[in-house]
């Protein structure tokens, strides 16, 4: 295994337009999901009179803070369908966008440390296979072959009893994904407007007709929210209540190391997930902080527990150093599945609730959200993820496969 060279730092990839007074569609939030939505609105639906409004800078929220893991090994049919659609899109996007964002299908191991983990893992592998998602159950000796630096000794506090493996899963350079989508959306005519915060919604009765921003009023035929951790705050300004809670989710990187870690390892039970970035940093994610928070930081004991788990699993990391830690704000739903669809306000659509796992879904979130906004009806892939499931009771419980404790 050798480190692949990083892409050259690009020139300016998109214009910096002033907002026009009116658009067919306004997307709020220029993270991965907002940019993918704009791209697919233009590409799949021919809707190019679109603005993406971003209160900070492009892809500076969770798109800059995630641990870049891409996989589709979710339990339920509805989830497997949408995440697998995303994975298939990932496989074609570097060519389609003419941008090598280092999508590396190095596989993902989800470890089992208890009998219940084993049962759940085997069940998930079987469910994945029935849904056409590549998945294998590996015994500890087979795990060693995939990831030799992992400690599978029976003498650890929580021994590795086995694990699921999805070979097509992997990682990608998150910033470059956003820039690739932004460049192509911009070429197709989409206005990407940074430093533009939505402060209110313009309504005509129960129909949204525009947004108020710090850069003035912008009329819109339809408005789509893709604001992740701030979805509740935004939706409340439109008079919509969402069943999401915003939590800090922390991650960290080490200094650069020679390539030692050939895959991605996630452990739900001892709670850490680890990959090695192309440059060489070890990238590790923690569980969510229990309390609600918008501060983009969390408590240090969460980091401590995460590092303890990492060192137990990977003794070779014991002398690595933390280079930096950070936090993002994740919007968590009661069933750990996203909400993509209409709201009680006509022409206002919401894509939120991705919680700890939104990055991997970026293309499918954009694909289905664009379809929903363009046609006024959900795509078959996101129909089960409607807001009304919390009233009907048709929940899609992915707390197991979400793999991040919350």
């Amino acid at each position: 295994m050798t480190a692949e060279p990083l892409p050259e730092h690009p020139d300016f990839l998109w214009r910096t337009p002033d907002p026009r007074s009116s658009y067919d569609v306004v997307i709020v939030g220029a993270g991965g999901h907002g940019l993918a939505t704009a791209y697919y609105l233009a590409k799949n639906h021919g809707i190019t009179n679109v603005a993406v409004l971003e209160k900070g800078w492009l892809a500076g929220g969770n798109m800059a803070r995630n641990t870049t893991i891409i996989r589709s090994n979710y339990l339920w049919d509805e989830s497997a369908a949408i995440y697998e659609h995303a994975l298939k899109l990932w496989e074609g996007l570097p060519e389609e966008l003419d941008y090598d964002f280092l999508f590396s299908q190095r596989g993902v191991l989800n470890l089992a440390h208890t009998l219940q983990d084993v049962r759940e893992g085997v069940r998930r592998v079987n469910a994945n296979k029935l849904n056409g998602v590549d998945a294998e159950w590996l015994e500890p000796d087979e795990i060693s072959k995939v990831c030799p630096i992992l400690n599978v000794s029976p003498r650890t506090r929580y021994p590795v009893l086995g694990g699921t493996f999805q070979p097509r899963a992997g990682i990608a350079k998150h910033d470059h994904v956003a820039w690739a989508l932004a460049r192509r959306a911009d070429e197709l005519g989409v206005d990407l407007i940074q430093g533009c915060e939505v402060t209110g919604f313009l309504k005509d009765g129960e129909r949204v007709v525009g947004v108020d921003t710090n850069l003035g009023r912008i009329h819109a035929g339809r408005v789509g929210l893709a604001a992740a951790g701030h979805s509740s705050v935004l939706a409340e300004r439109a008079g919509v209540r969402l069943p999401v809670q915003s939590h800090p989710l922390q991650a960290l990187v080490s200094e650069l190391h020679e390539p030692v870690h050939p895959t991605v390892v996630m452990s739900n039970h001892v709670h850490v997930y680890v990959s090695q970035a192309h440059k060489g940093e070890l990238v590790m994610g923690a569980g969510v902080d229990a309390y609600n928070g918008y501060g983009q930081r969390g408590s240090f004991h969460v980091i401590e527990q995460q590092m303890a788990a990492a060192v137990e699993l990977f003794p070779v990391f014991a002398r690595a150093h933390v280079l930096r830690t950070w936090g993002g704000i994740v919007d968590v739903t009661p069933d750990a599945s996203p909400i993509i669809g209409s709201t009680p306000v006509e022409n206002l659509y919401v894509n939120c609730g991705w919680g700890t796992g939104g990055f991997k879904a970026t293309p499918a979130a954009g694909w289905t959200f664009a379809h929903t906004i363009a046609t006024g009806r959900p795509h078959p892939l996101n129909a089960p993820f409607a807001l009304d499931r919390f009233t009907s009771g048709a929940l899609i419980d992915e707390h197991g496969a979400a793999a991040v404790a919350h």
Partner: protein
Amino acid sequence: MLLITCPWCGPRDETEYHYGGQAHVPYPPAPADLTDQQWAEYVFYRDNPKGPFAERWVHSTGCRRWFNVLRDTATHEVLTSYRPDEPRPGGTR
């Protein structure tokens, strides 16, 4: 790490506590009369403000009693804590 004051035990590290989400969410007085929408509100919908938030904590490794904390979710500053039979300081909710 947060420093949270238990109304009975005094200031302790966050690791002594567990979180219980939004405070002051009463059980519906007449559950049988609720619509599905109202049940959804009670079971699944909670406030998620950016700013002061009244929330429940339990002192798991101390007195094991529940109490309420008023905390700013933007700055994570703990504003005050109070017993569960006391109203939210400042009047609202």
